[in-house]
């Protein structure tokens, strides 16, 4: 019995390698090669490009990569939990704008003193994200509106709305309006990695916490099971006591809550105030989507993917100096997503075939049909 179990374990490890790690590596290499070809074809200094992209980042850059990755990962988890259920929450962008805005206003007001303010703010931000996500979710379950379309519209509205709120209730600083700064007592210290570089943002830890929670929820809980079932087959879910509409609402809520957190590490770590465009970082929602897909909606994959994207983006800052347009890394990012998915699709087909063959092999000599199975 246990021997067989071990067999199972080893098999699954080897499977993980053949069906997950290998395709990923192949995909990344392919993407970099493809981009290099573009650079080369357009007559840009290919050598400089490759050197810059593959150079080891400075300590400060490393910090930036980690910080950025934390936000990208959060956004990716928000998207991933929806993907797992076959929902396409392109609205993370809008949800985290609203979350950031609400959180910043609350934190700046300093209603809650000291470190407690942080916790309270996170809750406020999550609530705001939930509210925004619920609009799309409710329209989806009650009116059958494609969550994709409504989310797209809501993204625009979110930005304008946030701008309006800051303009109306914020305070002026220079040429923009911002929310009141967080009182210093509520500014957490970060994690120091290097002496000669600033700390990693304290709330970068959120990404880790959410990641663990995400894995646990999906892999070990009944709710996670229901969620995955709904994602695999809504019909099967319905027939087996899972109400897909209810799931949509709950999952969109969770997604919105995570989205609400996306910008918090930066907010508490360095910005301390919110104002569009200077005191806010946009686009994380869309990056998150891509990273979720890149990471196959798994915690490890997303962690890895967010670091990769942050790495590429940060390295691109120095492309200018070697005379290559920085936008080129976006090509890499796009292609890597595509390549990973293609690689995994191929891997999946092979896997299914292998498994069916195994079934037949282990059951009987292969000259009879499934019929006698």
């Amino acid at each position, binding site marked *: 019995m246990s021997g067989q179990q071990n067999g*199972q374990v080893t098999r*699954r490890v080897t499977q993980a390698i053949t069906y997950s790690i290998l395709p990923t590596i192949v995909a990344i290499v392919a993407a970099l090669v493809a981009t290099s070809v573009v650079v080369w074809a357009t007559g840009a200094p290919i050598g400089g490009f490759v050197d810059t992209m593959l150079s080891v980042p400075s300590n400060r850059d490393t910090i930036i990569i980690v910080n950025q990755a934390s936000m990208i990962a959060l956004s990716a988890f928000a998207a991933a939990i929806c993907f797992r259920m076959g929902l396409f929450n392109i609205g993370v962008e809008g949800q985290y704008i609203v979350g950031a805005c609400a959180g910043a206003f609350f934190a700046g007001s300093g209603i809650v003193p000291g470190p407690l303010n942080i916790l309270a703010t996170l809750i406020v931000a999550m609530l705001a994200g939930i509210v925004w996500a619920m609009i799309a979710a409710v329209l989806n379950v009650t009116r059958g509106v494609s969550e994709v379309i409504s989310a797209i519209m809501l993204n625009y509205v979110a930005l304008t709305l946030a701008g309006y709120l800051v303009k109306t209730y914020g305070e002026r600083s220079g040429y923009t309006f911002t929310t009141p700064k967080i009182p210093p007592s509520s500014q957490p210290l970060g994690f120091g990695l290097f002496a000669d570089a600033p700390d990693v943002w304290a709330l970068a830890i959120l990404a880790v916490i959410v990641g663990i929670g995400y894995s646990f929820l999906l892999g070990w809980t009944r709710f996670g099971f*229901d969620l995955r079932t709904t994602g695999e*087959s809504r019909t099967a879910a319905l*027939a*087996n006591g899972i109400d897909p509409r209810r799931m949509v609402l709950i999952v969109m809520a969770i997604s919105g809550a995570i989205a609400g957190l996306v910008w918090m590490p930066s907010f508490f770590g360095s910005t301390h105030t919110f104002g569009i465009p200077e005191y806010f970082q946009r686009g994380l929602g869309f990056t998150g989507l891509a990273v979720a897909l890149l990471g196959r909606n798994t915690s490890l994959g997303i962690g890895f993917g967010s670091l990769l994207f942050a790495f590429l983006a940060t390295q691109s800052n120095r492309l200018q100096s070697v005379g290559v347009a920085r936008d080129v890394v976006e090509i890499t990012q796009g292609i890597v997503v595509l390549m990973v998915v293609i690689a995994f699709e191929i891997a999946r087909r092979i896997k*299914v075939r292998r498994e069916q063959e195994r079934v037949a092999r282990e059951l009987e000599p292969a000259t009879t*049909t499934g019929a006698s*199975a």
Partner: protein
Amino acid sequence: MHVELRGIEKRFPGVVANHDVDLTIRPGAVHALIGENGAGKSTLMKILYGVQAPDGGTIVVDGEERRFASPTDAIDIGIGMVFQHFMLADNLTVLENVVLGAEKLHGIGEKARSQVREICEAYGFDLDPDALVATLGVAARQRVEILKVLYRGATLIILDEPTAVLVPQEVQALFANLRDLVASGRSVLFISHKLDEVLEIADDITVMRRGTTVGTADPRTATKQELAELMVGAELPSPELGEDTVTDVPILTLSGIGLTSDTGRRLLDDVDLTVHRGEIVGIAGVEGNGQTELVEVIMGMRRATSGAITLAEEDITRLSTRKVRERGVGFIPEDRHRHGVVLDFPLWENRILGHQTTRRVTRGPLLNPGGARADAERIIADYDVRTPSVHTSARALSGGNQQKFIVGREMSGEPVLLLASHPTRGVDVGAQAAIWDHIRRARHDGLGVLLISADLDELIGLSDRLEVILRGRITAHFDPDHVTAQELGTAMTGGAA
């Protein structure tokens, strides 16, 4: 036309669907190809029709060897096929479905329309060329399929299990058409595993088993037993009930159940129904007359718009599916791939499916993988599910084994009521017999069963009582011991013989 298949071979991952298949079809005759589920009939036909390329063997048409790269090639030399699972685009009109791919013949406009009308005339099909296929019933859809073939002027017409979805009367109508076709010099290849039908219509019979042709028979001399021997190497299992175990304790009671669609159509209309402990109640009806809705309403997948459902003295009318299942209702859905299993989950996770709240497989809000695996092992053993391990994904199992696993799962945790829709559809005889056994045994232990099936023999053989459902109403009751398939068919089609 004269068609010869020699030594055809086709492998699928892990399955040899066809090997050493030899088949000869002569012009102007109905040739029956019989074999049990999974014997390889459809695969062979897909090869003959060019949908799938054979891994070996030759196809000879009128003395000339052929290679079909795609159905186009087959169509061009006059082969037409009506698939086991209809190949129609619901949201296109009948005309569009018919002319699709054959636009060269008469275009897609008036000329084509009148052509279609003519054919309908000739074969007595009453079809409106401009009706959306979505609005048609099963029999009508099949006529559209045949229309497609005729429109292309096929001289060899393949019908893959055309009678599976028809009631006896409709079968007779179909056979009449087939005879006309043959009379007009065409050949028909007729696939079935219903032996009396085969004996009635066929001029030649070829039997397939485990992916190969095991012999031919002459319908004038052959008997059902002989054919069964050839098909499965044994007597075909026939469903029957042992001693009467029916009690008078009602387990499920439906009173005045009605269901109206969003568009105002009456899907279920004042349905009264009672199932007692130890009783199997069969629901007979042409597909699409409310069986699916009836099950969904009982399971809480849809809310009845009127009426009440009682399960063992408890009103479950408004309970959610999960709650209904918690009350001990087992459910064998009609479509195992859409409702029964999650194809890409391993078996042990599929064990949890539908039982997310039972102690054995979950712990409160958490899963209990250990328990689930153990119990999946149990089912695999008790129900003879052929699989290497509980970690195998459901997709890799054959339909029959998938079905056996589902039955095993739904029987676990002593259910008080079992809803079984088409429990043996698309399943090999071994599995079929096993599933019947399990249902009988459960009945013996006092389980109430609501059985829905398109297979009239199964219904008549397995039920203690028969109810006929027509356009969402229960229109007739029968005692299985004193009813023939014919009578049942008449009732199912509303007396329209």
